[in-house]
């Protein structure tokens, strides 16, 4: 059975995982939201076409998305040290998590915003709405449901990335699973951490989807 120290470690690991996930998601959205919006409005048929800018942003996002996360962690160690002061532990792990998640989330946001009907945008333009007004009052509110679903997916992905960071001393449940389960063959520790990760992701999914459907006014009720 699990010892008391083990249980404490798992509790701390869970807290560390939640801490990494919450802050990584928040910081990622801080960067990804403007990036996603820029990707949408600078398109050829966008509100503010800037083809050159669009191509550059597109390339950066694709590049970021194509680097495997485990390699990215190592590559960005200098940046991590610069920002977090060290390269291991939960706080330091937030840095590569954000770098990996921003391009991914920017794409999610882009595709959500692109779902908004062009006709509605045209209607807003015909009323004399400015570009910022259209973004804030048409694009984002009309894409709300899809954006919430996207955020649910993004958070789930960040949790699994954070677990992966455990392989290089990132802290959290993934770290515990590898240290005890993989290196010391304590299968029951690994099982418990895996179950905890699954439960966290599941709860998140359920809550995210509930909010998405509850707030969607396109559904007749």
């Amino acid at each position, binding site marked *: 059975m699990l010892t008391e120290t083990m249980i404490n470690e798992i509790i701390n690991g869970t807290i560390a995982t939640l801490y990494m996930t919450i802050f990584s998601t928040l910081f990622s959205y801080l960067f990804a939201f403007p990036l996603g919006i820029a990707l949408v409005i600078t398109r050829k048929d966008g509100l503010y076409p800037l083809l050159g800018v669009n191509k550059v942003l597109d390339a950066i996002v694709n590049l970021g998305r194509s680097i495997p996360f485990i390699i990215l962690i190592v590559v960005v160690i200098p940046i991590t040290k610069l920002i977090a002061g060290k390269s291991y532990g939960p706080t330091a792990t937030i840095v590569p998590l954000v770098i990996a998640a921003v391009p991914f989330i920017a794409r999610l946001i882009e595709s959500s915003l692109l779902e908004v009907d062009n006709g*509605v945008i045209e209607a807003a333009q*015909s009323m004399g709405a400015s570009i910022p007004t259209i973004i804030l009052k*048409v694009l984002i*509110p009309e894409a709300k449901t899809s954006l919430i679903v996207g955020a649910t997916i993004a958070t789930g992905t960040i949790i699994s990335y954070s677990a992966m960071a455990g392989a290089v001393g990132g802290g959290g449940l993934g770290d515990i699973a590898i240290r005890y389960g993989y290196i010391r063959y304590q299968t029951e520790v690994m099982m418990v951490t895996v179950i905890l990760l699954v439960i966290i992701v599941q709860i998140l999914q359920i809550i995210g989807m509930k909010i998405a459907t509850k707030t969607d006014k*396109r559904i007749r009720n």
Partner: protein
Amino acid sequence: MLAIEPLIQLIDLGKEYISQGATIVALNDINLEIFSGDIFGIIGMSGAGKSTLVRCINFLEKPTTGTVVLDGNDLSLLSEKEIRKLRQNIGMIFQQFNLLMQRNVEDNICFPLEIAGVKADERKKRSQELLEIVGLSDKAKSYPSQLSGGQKQRVAIARALSTNPKILLCDEATSALDPTTTSSILSLLKEINKKLGITIVIITHEMSVVERICDKVAIIDNGELAEQGSVENVFSNPKTDAARKLVYHNNNAVMEMKGKRCIRIVFDGKSSFEPVIANMILECRTQVNILFADTKDIKGKAFGQMVLQLPEDSIQADKIINYLKNNKMIVEELIDYVN
């Protein structure tokens, strides 16, 4: 004598699109004057350039050549910001209604007022007035997804009118609606024109819409202005090919009867034949050809039989048969009656 200035002037208007290297001339040298209080129809086949034209009126589309003058303002001389300001005084409605799906009816109507910077309590008051005008006072808190097409278009009209515009642009506003709803929306537009004195520009591909409510009409064909004038003049005496094509294509009176299906209907005294046939034509909005009739009117009751040639369109033909059957007529389809 003082000449009346037109409210909308299109001067040598041209619009080209570059698409995959090729240049598409969507509009070519359009000159048009629309006066205050008019209900002006712009009609043309699909792809003729109607939407491009109407989008040029509020500069949603910048013309390649020529310009638009609204109430004395040459739009090509205005800044982006000034144009946005000006658009606040031009309402626009669309075929697909284009309502904000995540906002309720009231908040949709308030949206142009929000853009114009009107205060919240004033917006609310105005939206209630407008809901009354379009007859949807009970739907203020409903969402667009809970409304029918006709109701959505009413909300769109209320929204377009919220800023008290001088001009209302309608791009195929009734094309997604059934005939009855179309009729009620057109009546509403007419009423708005009369009561509020708003100049209405109606873009459509349907003759019936122009006939119903427009005073004047312009025919657009292949990006060019083919003909314009009063509705009676243009429709009764179309001069250009484009006009003739439109007038006759849409006009049932000259529709050829090419259908092969014929039916025999029997009158057994239970009904009076005139209302049955007349109502069927009205209800189904189509024509039939009476090939043979042997009927007697005995004290207002019809006896006898009639052979009708049905329209070629099988949906229309079935509609007629169903209508007659639903009205307790004895209907029998005849094979090879005409060939």
